[in-house]
């Protein structure tokens, strides 16, 4: 796949390196250090850092401002953008705002429903869905035009990503759904957290059967478990999450003070196994409020040092 943007993440992937990305959740306040400190912890061990957009519908400092903070540190942000809160005017406007700071990666998402968050009584927007946001960014970039048809002076140059959840239902359309996102113009995928590796590999088989792995870079998503309580919570309470019993049992069978270490170990073992899966182009490590563990995971999984690209 040829390089179409100045994105460092795109360059790394196009050169055939296994990419490593991670993410930081912005604070529930305006202290910039909440972002810069997290970024400092991981910056040497990842190629790009996602900034989440009001994840789980809890109001936080905005993704765009946090991405600008990373940019000012000389880092490579991935702007997460959900279609829940903004209509097409606001989405295009924020894309241009990000482009003005030379933010070169965007992750197009529909976002969690607002009923999960702190403004459950709020309206949702959903003027576009995630696929239509992918189309919008590609249109703005490749045609140099707004959705309304007018020309954009200095169009955005963004590497366009989206999420994929191989574990949500109905399973039979999870590969067609990826094909649909590719048809919409997506260039890289960061998957939902993978705990059920067998199911993920079955999905990847379906992806390869249709040759989709040659049309999009797939970064396998991983979140280390801090303890058995977290595993149980994710299994029972998080929609679309597939945590097999063996993971819960393995953590439950580990003494409490060693469960965090065991969670990291499971994560590293998963990466080692997923490295062998044809079509996996990298890893997206989401260590939720546990960013300090990212360097250890990256190093232990043999993904360090990170490649240097121009």
């Amino acid at each position, binding site marked *: 796949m040829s390089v179409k943007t100045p994105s460092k993440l795109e360059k790394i992937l196009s050169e055939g390196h296994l990419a490593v990305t991670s993410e930081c959740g912005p604070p529930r306040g305006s202290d910039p250090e909440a972002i810069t400190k997290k970024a400092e912890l991981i910056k040497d061990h990842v190629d790009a850092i996602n900034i989440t957009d009001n994840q789980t519908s809890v109001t936080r400092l905005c993704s765009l401002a946090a991405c600008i903070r990373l940019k000012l540190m000389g880092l490579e942000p991935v702007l997460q953008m959900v279609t*829940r809160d903004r209509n097409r005017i606001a989405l295009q406007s924020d894309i241009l705002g990000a482009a003005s700071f030379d933010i070169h990666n965007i992750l197009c998402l529909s976002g969690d429903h607002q009923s999960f968050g702190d403004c459950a009584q709020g309206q*949702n927007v*959903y003027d576009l869905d995630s696929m239509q946001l992918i189309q*919008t960014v590609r249109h703005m970039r490749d045609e140099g035009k707004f959705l309304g048809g007018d020309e954009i002076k200095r169009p955005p140059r963004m590497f366009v990503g989206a999420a994929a959840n191989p574990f949500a239902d109905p399973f039979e*359309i999870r590969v067609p759904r990826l094909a*649909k996102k590719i*048809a919409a113009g997506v260039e890289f995928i960061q998957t939902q957290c993978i705990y059920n590796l067998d199911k993920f590999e079955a999905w990847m088989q379906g992806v390869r059967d249709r040759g989709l792995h040659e049309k999009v870079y797939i970064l396998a998503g991983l979140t280390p478990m801090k303890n058995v309580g977290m595993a149980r919570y994710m299994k029972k309470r998080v929609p*679309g999450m597939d945590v097999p019993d063996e993971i819960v049992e393995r953590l439950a069978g580990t003494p409490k003070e060693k469960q965090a270490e065991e969670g990291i170990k499971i994560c590293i073992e998963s990466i080692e196994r997923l490295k062998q899966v044809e079509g996996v182009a990298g890893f997206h490590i989401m260590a939720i409020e546990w960013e300090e563990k990212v360097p250890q995971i990256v190093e232990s999984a043999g993904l360090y040092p990170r490649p240097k690209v121009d």
Partner: protein
Amino acid sequence: MIVADKKPLEEIIGYLKSHKSILILGCNECVTVCEAGGQKEVQVLASALRMNALKEGNNVKIDELTLERQCDHEYLEEIRDVIDQYDAVVSLACGVGVQFTAEQYPSVMIYPGVNTCFMGATEKRGLWTERCQGCGQCILATTGSVCPVARCAKRLFNGPCGGSTAGKCEINAEVDCAWQLIVDRLKALDKLDQYETLCPIKDWSTDRAGGPRKVVREDVQ
């Protein structure tokens, strides 16, 4: 039909504090079917308001009447001769009926007696569910006759999202995932390949977003 639900009695009592002569006005159409504002509900509400007035020691006249419809001038004319007897009307019709009644009788206070909820259907007695949001540009031909605008919590045109679990929506395990229904139906029709057609960005100008709407049919005027 338009589905409505009864307002709490306390709320209605609150509206009526200063009124002495009140008409409870039902509607024989949708709100009768969904048991929120028909003749039976008019009787029940009127009785409750009379008992409350008695308890509070207020001398209030409360009458009952149910029209065929409140969304047609023709039927609203039936109260023209009696409306002056009242200083307030509680309309148990949908929001359309409340407003249309108020437009006909500008000098009388017309209060809503129900909460108008959605366009839906009777699944069984006591259970009504939403089917349509009147977006003005029907896409059911492409979605296996299941509407993602009305039935997907994120109104995704290219769903399902990653929160669909065992056929249910991420917001509530009692809500069906519209996209599971769409996929199941396309499969039953042997049209699952249709799923991969991207649904284009929607023109919402025919929806609420375009401002108050009207349908003009000169051929039938």
